[in-house]
């Protein structure tokens, strides 16, 4: 367990050393500012108190469906495919740590990066909501924390999907392209294929809409949760199998 943690810290250190993730986090926080600014503008133009509630929730589509997947694909590609290509994965693999622990710690490091980003987005959204809320009503903090937190589960499954894709490609550009292409294809498959509606986990990226604020029947809720978890297990096992067989 300590080796997983030590390697996890190392992987996180590598991600932190790349400034692009900081830039992307700042972009995400700026995106959080758009809805309250628009609300404020409409309010001043209409000379009435227009209130768009739950800014944090409004931003989640843009952040969770687009920005965070891009961050995930970049981070996973940096930790897997780029290291395969540059051969510096050997630094870790020649040390006394099993490949299972390396694989797990890399995926956990990306998960941590995503959690930090989500946390930053939540803070930015909540502060802006509070600042621009003309009605003076306090935002529902517990609700918005829960909304952001539950979204980490499908995002972790997305990390595992990206990690699997990284095991079957050799170039980092190709891996990045494939991650985006597969994600987009699964996301919008139901527009073209009727039976694809609801069977891909990426269609349930926003767990806050499934678990919070809606009254889905327990059976439907359970089937969606188990579907996402099932995808997660499959991606993890498949990715680990290929990672174990990889030769350098």
């Amino acid at each position, binding site marked *: 367990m300590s080796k997983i943690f030590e390697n996890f810290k190392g992987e996180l250190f*590598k991600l932190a050393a790349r400034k692009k993730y900081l830039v992307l986090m700042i972009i995400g926080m700026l995106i959080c500012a758009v809805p309250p600014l628009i609300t404020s503008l409409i309010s001043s133009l209409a000379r009435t108190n227009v209130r768009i509630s739950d800014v944090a929730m409004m931003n989640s589509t843009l952040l969770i469906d687009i920005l965070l997947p891009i961050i995930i694909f970049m981070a996973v590609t940096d930790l897997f495919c780029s290291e395969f290509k540059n051969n510096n994965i*050997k630094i870790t693999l020649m040390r*006394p740590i099993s490949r299972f622990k390396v694989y797990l710690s890399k995926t956990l490091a990306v998960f941590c990066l995503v959690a930090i980003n989500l946390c930053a987005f939540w803070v930015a959204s909540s502060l802006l909501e509070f600042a621009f809320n003309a009605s003076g009503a306090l935002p529902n903090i517990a609700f918005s924390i829960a909304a952001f937190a539950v979204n980490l589960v499908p995002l972790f499954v997305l990390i595992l999907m990206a990690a699997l894709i990284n095991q079957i490609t050799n170039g980092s550009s190709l891996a990045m392209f494939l991650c985006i292409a597969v994600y987009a294809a699964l996301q919008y498959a139901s527009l073209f294929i009727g039976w694809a509606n609801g069977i891909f986990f990426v269609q349930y990226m926003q767990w806050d809409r499934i678990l919070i604020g809606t009254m889905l029947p327990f059976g439907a809720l359970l089937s969606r949760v188990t579907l996402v978890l099932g995808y997660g297990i499959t991606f993890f096992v498949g990715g680990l199998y290929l990672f174990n067989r990889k030769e350098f």
Partner: protein
Amino acid sequence: MTKVLEIKNLTKKYKNGRGVENITFSIEKGDIFGILGPNGSGKTTTMKAIVGLCGVDSGAIEVFGYDNRAEFEKAMADVGCLIEMPSIYDYLSAYNNLKLAARLYNNVDNERIDKALSIVRLDKYKNDKAGKFSLGMKQRLGIAMALLSEPEFIILDEPANGLDIEGIVEMRELIVRLSKEKGVTFLISSHISSELEKMCNKIAVIYDGELVSVDSIESALEFNPTLEDYFLNQVKERKGAVVL
């Protein structure tokens, strides 16, 4: 003597037909064991199989008595390696590259990292990005990584690659000193016979994926003036006359 490494009937073939076949040898504690062979003969494949970078088709490898597949972590606990080109992160400083590698060892502190850098004379450049290093400096950093945890067994694949004359001499002296003073065991591959002749006490010749011979350096040089002659004689006996 304690066996540090034991390889039994190792076979690893790549899709292109290259690789190694039926390799068997063992290394005892304190040995400086050289593997001599031309480019593409299977030296690196053998080393990669030892450290788990590639799988094997058949055979067994034990490091410190531990099977390197079933008990990988125990087998690699006291092993330092430099295989092929040094693996470093270009966007990190020399110090941070070592710091990253140090996380998986309990006995490596900041002082040890500084010492490893000074051994390979990179202490002046510890905060420079490794991406800006010359090939020789990268090789030195790779050697520092192999020495970092003060391992009992060090595997070096073509360690003289990219090093200048002073660097080669320093590295050789370091290897001999560590072996004599601390009983560190070395497995070193090279295609330059003179380099191995100056530091090894045992030598194995690999040719075309097969182990041709394993001898002590004294018996190798008993009827041959140099290791180069020994190599050519061994290969000639095995494969017929070598066309030069």
